């Protein structure tokens, strides 16, 4: 630190002393000269610039720039709010602070309340009240916090002797996904085992001597063949489902003339000797090309029209219409006249292996995967699937698919590329 008595101060003090002496010499009283001396000295000292004042900077070496400020920790409440999951700070078993998602889950009133009141779950209460230092700090699972079906994982972090940070992580989705996976495996193995069991049964019967008679043998072989075909169809469906799912993040890039695909599918169905094929009523309107995958679109049409043929009343028309819906979408709809579907079942129709009437569906040769495949194809095409049904009247399945970009369409018309996939 610089000394207070710089040379300027010393000169000023000297000058004031000289002035006082001159005053004394000129005949002023000693007292007044002393007062003047002391006053001047005091004035000099007061006026002496402190070393930190900016006035001194011109004579001193410039200060080094202040070091950059260390980032300070933001307040705890800010950190809490930044976490999207419910977090509580518990001090002395009372909720000291809770972020807004904790308040949304457990209620606004929890701050200041006992932690058992905030998280009312026996397992949580036991875990939070246990102060034994050797206790396990593993996360515990709470069912029914919030709503009955919600599942949470609770992690507790000890911060200091009496402060704990309680972190809740929602696990409802994981649980649901896991259950769906288990259900799917169970369903798939059940569906595969049914035809297999019947094939095995018939083989055994044939071996036991039923094969001697030509008629019986023929009948049994036909049943076995049908069951084997059913199994094959199911495996094909499962494979295409997994293939579509694997590709779902890659939108199809080919351009497809949906009118041509519809005509092709209708022609195939008419050639299949199904009596219902004569009721197909294709009214394809003018519609630009869409962006899609030809093979998948053909499968989609087979599944939707196949359903309409199976579940519509005999000799009622199946109307297939295609038209442009605005500038960006093509609207394909397939309407049948039949029993329709009850609204309760409607929401679950696209689940795998979900059947409104399982016996009837199997008798018709359904695999239970048709609409699940349709849904996945539509999803991959970034389209929309809509199923409307009036019980007793009939069902209309509508699919919206995005059109190919108009600029590219013009380019395609000049090159007219062969679209295959």
């Amino acid at each position, binding site marked *: 630190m610089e000394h207070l008595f710089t040379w300027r101060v010393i000169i000023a003090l000297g000058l004031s002393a000289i002035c006082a002496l001159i005053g004394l010499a000129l005949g002023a009283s000693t007292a007044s000269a002393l007062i003047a001396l002391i006053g001047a000295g005091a004035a000099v000292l007061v006026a002496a610039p402190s070393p930190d004042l900016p006035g001194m900077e011109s004579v001193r070496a410039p200060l080094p720039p202040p070091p950059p400020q260390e980032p300070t920790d933001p307040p705890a409440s800010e950190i809490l709010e930044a976490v999207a999951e419910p977090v509580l700070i518990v001090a*002395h*078993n*009372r909720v000291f602070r809770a972020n807004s998602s904790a308040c949304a889950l457990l*209620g*606004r*009133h*929890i701050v*200041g*309340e*006992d*932690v*058992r*009141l*905030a998280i*009312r*779950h*026996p397992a*949580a*209460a036991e875990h939070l009240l246990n102060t034994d230092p050797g206790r396990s700090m593993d996360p515990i699972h709470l069912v*029914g916090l919030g709503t*009955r079906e919600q599942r949470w994982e609770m992690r507790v972090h000890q911060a200091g002797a009496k402060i704990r940070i309680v972190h809740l992580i929602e696990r409802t989705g994981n649980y649901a996904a896991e259950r769906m996976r288990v259900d799917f495996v169970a369903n798939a193995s059940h569906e595969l085992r049914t035809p297999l069991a019947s094939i095995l049964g018939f083989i055994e019967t044939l071996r036991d001597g039923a094969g001697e008679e030509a008629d019986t043998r023929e009948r049994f072989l036909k049943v076995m063949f049908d069951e084997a075909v059913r199994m094959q169809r199911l495996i094909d469906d499962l494979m295409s489902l997994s293939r579509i799912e694997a590709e779902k993040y890659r939108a199809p890039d080919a351009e497809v003339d949906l009118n041509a695909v519809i005509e092709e599918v209708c022609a195939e169905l008419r050639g299949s000797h199904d009596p219902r094929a004569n009721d197909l009523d294709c009214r394809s309107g003018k519609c630009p090309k869409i962006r899609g995958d030809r093979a998948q679109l053909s499968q989609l049409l087979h599944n939707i029209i196949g359903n309409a043929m199976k579940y519509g009343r005999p000799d009622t028309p199946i109307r297939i219409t295609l038209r442009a819906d605005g500038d960006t979408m093509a609207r394909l709809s397939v309407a049948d006249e039949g029993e329709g579907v009850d609204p309760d079942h409607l929401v679950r129709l696209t689940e795998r292996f979900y059947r409104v009437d399982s016996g009837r569906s199997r008798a018709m040769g359904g695999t239970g995967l048709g609409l699940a495949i349709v849904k996945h194809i539509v999803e991959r095409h970034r389209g929309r699937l809509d199923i409307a049904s009036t019980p007793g009247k009939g069902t209309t399945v509508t699919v919206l698919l995005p059109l190919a970009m108009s600029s590219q369409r013009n380019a395609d018309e000049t090159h007219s590329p062969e679209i295959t996939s």
Partner: protein
Amino acid sequence: MMEHTVKAFDDDIGELRGLIAHMGGLAESAIEASMVALRRHDLEAAQRIIDGDKEIDALETEVEKLAIRLIALRAPMADDLREVVAALKIAGVVERIGDYAKNIARRVPAIDDRGHIEPLSLLPAMASMATDMVHDVLDAFAARDPEKAVHVCEQDRAVDDFYNSIFRTLVTFMMENPKSISQAAHMLFIAKNLERVGDHATNVAEMVYYAATGEYMGERETGDTVPIMGN
């Protein structure tokens, strides 16, 4: 609620409420667990529920002691007094709810379903209605929310109606299947227990309402709990 000058008083009230929430959580999950044990015919789980009831009883004693100490030492006034008195009464009721769960668990060995007692499938639905009421009323207690308490009381009507319909179904079932009459009788008691759980949830709701507002909830219109059969 306003803070008190004596901080220890706030701590005691917080502790009291925490104890009741703990009891409530235990009673609620005991009812749910007893229905799961009944459905799966899980005797071990049933025994665990019966043993677990002791914990609820111990908590009730703790609530009583704390409430009496609070009244003796702090001489609470106005809403504080209502809070303590309501806590004392709620603890007694929640303990009863725990007893009903224990009673249901006791009947698990007596009901061996094997899929032929059709009305058994009705009980879980009724149980979920009753536990919803308990859950909601404990939420209302935690939030000191009188409106939610009124809402719980309104739900009781549905539980009563459910009980009446189960009663009829079970009596019909008994007439048709005299062989399983003792199992059906046990189920009738379970249904009655669940109906009582709903009633007790209403009692808690009334106390929550009283503690929060200082007024009694108006006389409720009670459902006809004893169905008259034979015509």
